[in-house]
């Protein structure tokens, strides 16, 4: 079974803090994705990566950056957390050429 893990299930941070969300997949997938999910807005794509060191902006990249130094690991970085970044963050991965995505359990981030 594909396994996608995220570093934390729940996280509480202060406004202005730098926040790192880590995602690791164990199936040698080329593609990795970060989404945020908010009530009434659904899942929105923040960033994705199709290879090591490669990244592409999604629909809402503002306020976020990402890092993919190793194939299995994709990090989402909030350079200076703000209260409007309080959300559920979901990581996913998929094989190149395939569109089925496998999701991690999510990180619920609260920024105070």
């Amino acid at each position, binding site marked *: 079974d594909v396994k996608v893990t995220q570093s934390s299930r729940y996280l509480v941070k202060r406004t202005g803090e730098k926040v790192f969300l880590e995602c690791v997949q164990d199936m040698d997938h080329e593609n990795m*994705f970060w989404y945020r999910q908010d009530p*009434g807005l659904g899942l929105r*794509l923040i960033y994705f990566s199709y290879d090591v060191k490669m990244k592409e902006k999604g629909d809402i990249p503002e306020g976020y950056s990402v890092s993919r130094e190793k194939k299995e690991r994709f990090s989402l970085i909030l350079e200076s957390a703000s209260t409007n970044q309080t959300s559920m963050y979901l990581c996913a991965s998929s094989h190149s050429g*395939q*569109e089925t*995505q496998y999701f991690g359990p999510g990180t619920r981030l609260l920024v105070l």
Partner: protein
Amino acid sequence: SQQGEEDPQALSIQEGENATMNCSYKTSINNLQWYRQNSGRGLVHLILIRSNEREKHSGRLRVTLDTSKKSSSLLITASRAADTASYFCVPSGGTSYGKLTFGQGTILTVHP
């Protein structure tokens, strides 16, 4: 990537009944996927149907696809309380890097 629109927004049924959820989309697709999200198992891929298929089964799930009407349906037979979840349809036209767009979903509640 395009977004599917699920209908109804919410569905409430008794255990043992069948649940039908519908999906519409706007432009031609290569395939259409259904995902489920609940608090226990997170967001999980259920089934993928290709544009040249009309019907597909997986356990208690039956998916139909009508490309002429740009619509799909997901039928869950003999529903269980554990089927309580949000269900998302995700049409795909063969996007680069496997990007997907999720809609608001249908919230299914199965009462014991």
